[in-house]
């Protein structure tokens, strides 16, 4: 892994810094941060000053939100600047002033000023945090100026808390800070700040007043100032790095490092995560937050589980890749994973808590990790417990006492006792009795787990003591050697139960993972097989609903880019307008929203973007059946995977539809051009004949004898009829191929359509014997008479064209199962090899086509199109004795109507 190619992360980072997003997406706005170490250093002031300067340059600038803090010199700076009115939100009786994001987006100036980047928005606003508002502004191409203090940086949060003793709740991700295009450090020596404070020039929020004394101590301020300066210096260092890498890609880069941090449910874990983040930043290394699930995890309380999820979320929000592995032993699993991922450093926390007594003999996790880590560096961070916000939904999930294990245990012991009594009666030694009890204990352990097995061990000891050792029926032991027996029984019971519990847990984990993986595999397989979007969405929704025990709805954009559910859902969340808003937001911003996220958290469902490299194709909405149960990070990741799977499937169908459309267009285009050339030839020939004959008649009126005149007139008539047929064919063809035609199918006797076709072709078949064979039992056929007549006309025309004048024609109709079959047979030269397969293709004129051959080759193609439109088939072959026969089948689809009406005498009107 130590090659010098840029990693994807590095490339991505560079792309972002260069501010030129790939593709046609709009330019992202630039973020300038005014960064200070404490309130009162003059960030807002500096920002407004910069704004005034820009205003003078004539830039389009709007103050989105500014805390004037009641200082006149700051307020004076607002003079002449356009200010957006603040949004007033009432929350629990108080009126809160908030930044109006939508107003800013609607106004769309060049630059918006938004004070206090780390601010937490009032509930009910679109985003939970103001930095998200800013992100949205930037995403829509608006530049933003904002202010922030060092203690609000997520990764510095606990350091600051440690120094100042004040826990800062309002934080923002380091990512935002790192991505800021400009950071202006606003510095003021601590002594001056303290002077300003005493003069009342520093605004301190009411609720934080009690912390004032604690916070604005000189040593505190010096420490904070140092952190702020250091952060800024780090940024500058990074800028230099980027410049260097950009300039010469071949310059050796720092060795490739990868960090791993162990995450657990312990309250100290959050600090360890932040420490790892800082270390990773310093090393410019990617980092992984790993949680190892063990058998104990199964017994984890809800509060612990929720804390674990919070820690993993924290790590993710700080830029870590999060991974959950399950196994029996934390240390060996960690190390195995670490070596698999080329991890160079492991960060792990240690606790100050005294070690539990039963662990005294064993090495702690940290000790073992250090001992076994080999080449990997291990960083041990002292963890400090911090209050985590845990809101377990009324921890009333204490399962109803399950009596079955205890009944089972009692039964096992009863059986063991009976057997022992029997064995003793036979005269076996006590050692055998011990074995019988041991067997019972192991059986209980294997079947019912730890507690019943411990109980069983104790009970066996008691039973053995009371029933089989002297003095009988008393709980005393005379012979001390039995104490060893008792101890052995207890230990065996405990060991057996621990081992089985572990095995069972791992089997459970494996089973659950397998189930999900299998579901995913199944889904992806099914999705590949589906060719219709609506069916695909239905399948996807069903699978996601089953796997995640949730209602799932997929939204896709319509042609106007507005989301709508594809499958109709009755009375679910998908019907409400607020939910649509959330789905629309996700589609537009390619970021999750809704319940459990920081955007529109009041929505009923969680909305995930279904994204492919080509963009967001839709939104997957998931509403858990039990909304109080937070989704675990691995479930969340799996859900993301599902969303991606579905996205690719949707995209695949869209692309294949598009390519089909394109193919169709090309086909149509090809058809059109060959049609044009064929038609122009076929139109020209009869037109030339008509025009020639007519002009000859007009100019030589007197010199022509009667025979010649009649011939010319006959030519005009014949050729016009040919033209008329050609036009009819073209008309049918265009209607059929454009799909505009709807068959007017009716039940009718075959002889009628044959008769009318023959009448139309009367002149062509003149002088030939035409035999029509129609069996008596031929049922009514279900067909469009005009179109089928056209088929017959074309076939008869063809037969006369390819056979000698005067040779016979045959037309046969017969009943076949489910319809009728018709045949037109001639005694002409028949088909040439190769004709059978191609003869029905458009513009095919036979294997020996000569340019002077009459006809477009359209006739048989039309016959095929018409017959296929009826759901039938057409084929041509040579017949014994010479000649060709064309046979086509018209299926009825349904049984012919009854003719019972013949019996009933209808009333005359």
């Amino acid at each position, binding site marked *: 892994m130590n090659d010098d190619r840029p990693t994807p992360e590095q490339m991505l980072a560079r792309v972002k810094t260069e501010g030129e997003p790939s593709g046609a997406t709009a330019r992202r706005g630039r973020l300038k941060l005014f960064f200070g170490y404490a309130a009162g250093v003059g960030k807002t002031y500096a920002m407004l000053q910069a704004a005034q300067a820009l205003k003078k340059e004539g830039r389009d600038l709007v103050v989105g939100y500014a805390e004037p803090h009641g200082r006149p010199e700051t307020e004076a700076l607002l003079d002449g600047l356009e200010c957006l009115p603040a949004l007033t939100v009432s929350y629990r009786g108080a009126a809160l002033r908030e930044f109006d994001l939508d107003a800013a987006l609607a106004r769309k100036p060049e630059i918006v000023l938004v004070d206090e980047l780390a601010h937490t928005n009032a509930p009910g606003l679109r985003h939970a945090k103001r930095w998200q508002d800013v992100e949205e502004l930037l995403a829509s191409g608006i530049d933003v100026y904002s202010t922030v203090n060092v203690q609000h940086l997520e990764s510095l949060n606990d350091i600051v808390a440690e120094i100042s003793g004040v826990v800062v709740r309002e934080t923002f991700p380091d990512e935002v800070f790192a991505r800021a295009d400009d950071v202006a450090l606003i510095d003021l020596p601590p002594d001056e700040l303290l002077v300003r404070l005493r003069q009342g020039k520093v605004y301190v929020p009411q609720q934080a007043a009690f912390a004032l004394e604690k916070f604005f101590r000189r040593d505190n301020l010096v420490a904070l100032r140092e952190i702020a300066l250091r952060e800024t210096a780090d940024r500058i260092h990074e800028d230099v790095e980027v410049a260097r890498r950009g300039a010469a890609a071949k310059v050796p880069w720092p060795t490739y490092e990868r960090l791993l941090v162990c995450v657990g449910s312990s309250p100290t874990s959050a600090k360890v995560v932040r420490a790892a983040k800082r270390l990773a930043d310093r090393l410019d290394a990617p980092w992984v937050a790993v949680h190892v699930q063990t058998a104990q995890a199964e017994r984890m309380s809800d509060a612990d589980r929720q804390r674990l999820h919070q820690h993993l979320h924290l790590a993710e929000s700080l830029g870590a890749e999060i991974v959950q592995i399950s196994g029996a032993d934390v240390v060996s699993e960690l190390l195995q994973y670490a070596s698999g991922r080329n991890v160079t450093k492991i960060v792990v926390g240690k606790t100050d808590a005294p070690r539990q007594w039963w662990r005294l003999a064993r090495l702690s996790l940290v000790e073992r990790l250090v001992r076994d880590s080999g080449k990997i560096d291990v960083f041990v961070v002292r963890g400090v417990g911090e209050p985590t916000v845990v809101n377990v939904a009324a921890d009333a999930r204490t399962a109803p006492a399950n009596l079955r294990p205890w009944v089972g245990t009692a039964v096992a012991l009863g059986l063991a006792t009976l057997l022992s009594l029997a064995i003793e009666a036979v005269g076996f030694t006590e050692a055998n009795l011990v074995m019988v009890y041991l067997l019972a204990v192991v059986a209980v352990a294997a079947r019912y787990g730890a507690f019943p097995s411990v109980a069983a061990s104790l009970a066996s000891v008691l039973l053995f003591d009371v029933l089989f050792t002297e003095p009988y029926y008393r709980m005393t032991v005379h012979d001390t050697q039995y104490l060893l027996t008792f101890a052995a029984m207890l230990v065996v019971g405990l060991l057996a139960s621990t081992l089985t519990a572990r095995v069972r847990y791992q089997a459970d984990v494996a089973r659950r993972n397998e189930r999900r993986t299998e579901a995913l595999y199944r889904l992806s397989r099914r999705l590949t097989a589906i060719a219709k979007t609506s069916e695909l969405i239905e399948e996807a929704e069903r699978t996601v609903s089953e796997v995640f025990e949730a209602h799932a709805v997929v939204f896709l954009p319509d042609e106007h880019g507005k989301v709508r559910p594809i499958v109709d859902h009755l009375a679910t969340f998908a019907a409400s307008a607020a939910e649509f808003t959330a789905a629309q937001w996700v589609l537009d911003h390619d970021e999750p929203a809704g319940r459990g996220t920081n955007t529109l958290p009041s929505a009923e469902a969680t909305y995930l973007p279904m994204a492919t490299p080509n963009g967001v194709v839709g939104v997957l909405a998931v509403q858990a059946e039990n909304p109080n149960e937070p989704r675990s990070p691995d479930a969340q990741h799996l859900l993301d995977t599902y969303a991606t799977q579905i996205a690719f499937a949707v995209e695949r169908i869209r692309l294949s539809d598009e390519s089909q459309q394109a193919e169709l267009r090309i086909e149509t285009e090809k058809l059109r051009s060959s049609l044009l050339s064929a038609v122009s030839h076929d139109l020209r020939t009869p037109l030339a004949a008509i025009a020639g004959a007519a002009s000859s008649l007009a100019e030589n009126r007197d010199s022509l004898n009667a025979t010649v005149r009649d011939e010319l007139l006959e030519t005009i*008539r014949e050729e*016009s*009829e040919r033209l*008329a047929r050609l036009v*009819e064919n073209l*008309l*049918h063809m265009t209607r059929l191929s454009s799909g505009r035609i709807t068959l*007017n199918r*009716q*039940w*009718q*006797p075959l*002889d*009628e*359509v*044959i*008769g*009318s076709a*023959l*009448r139309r072709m009367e002149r062509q078949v003149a002088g030939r014997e*035409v035999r*029509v064979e*129609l069996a008596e039992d031929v049922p*009514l056929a279900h067909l469009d*008479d*005009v179109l089928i*007549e056209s088929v017959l006309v074309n076939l008869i025309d063809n037969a006369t064209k390819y056979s000698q004048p005067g040779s016979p024609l045959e*037309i046969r109709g017969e009943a076949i199962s489910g319809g009728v079959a018709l045949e037109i047979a001639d005694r002409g030269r028949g088909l040439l090899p190769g004709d059978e397969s191609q003869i029905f293709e458009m513009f095919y004129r036979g294997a020996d086509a000569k340019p002077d051959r009459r006809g477009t080759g359209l006739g048989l193609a039309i016959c095929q199109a018409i017959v296929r439109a009826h759901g039938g088939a057409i084929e041509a072959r040579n017949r014994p004795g010479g000649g060709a026969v064309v046979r086509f089948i018209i299926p009825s689809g349904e049984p012919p*109507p009854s*003719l019972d*009406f*013949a019996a009933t*005498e*209808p*009333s*005359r*009107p």
Partner: protein
Amino acid sequence: MTSSDALIAVIEDEPPIRRFLRASLSVEGFRVAEAATAKDGLRLITQERPALVLLDLGLPDADGLTIIEQVRQWSTMPIIILSARGEEQSKVEALDAGADDYLSKPFGVGELLARIRVALRHAARISDAGVETTVFRFGRIRGDLAERRVFVNDEEVKLTKLEFDLLATLVRNAGKVLTHRYLLKEVWGPYAVDEPHYVRVFMANLRKKLEPDPSRPEYLLTEQGVGYRLKGD
């Protein structure tokens, strides 16, 4: 038997067709009045009261159908529509709206004059009702509507009641096209109009009994997609 100086109105927007119609009709002794639009056509019909109207269904300013409907409000004058092959549905609509017959473009002079004669004859019979004869004959087939008897080559043919009713309806309108709907209504009653296969099956039976070669009928002709016509004259 045709009133040779009868006035025929030609409402058609294509000059070549008008020219061809004018030439062919005046040779036969008809007087011809022409209009190129529906508006002019309607005016022509109301002012000149022609003996017959030749009406193109595809006029530039209005659907020919509306002209038929308007004329039928006050007159039974014969209207023959001119329409292209492939537009069977609009022909049926026009016929059901009251047009008397149709000609598919392209058509020959023979066909044109035959239609006109049949239409004029029908109009004459309607105007002096009661003269209708009950005896008919076409080719080898003859019969008497009043006696309900039919003979082929002087041999009596047994027809069912419905077959005879169907034949009688065709005979009374000899030479004129009759739509499936019209025949169903006339023979089976108003409730059968959506069962067009009734007519087809009975027509097939009738052909088997009357025509020498039922699959190549000489008299009971199919107008594909429209209806039937008993070959007149």
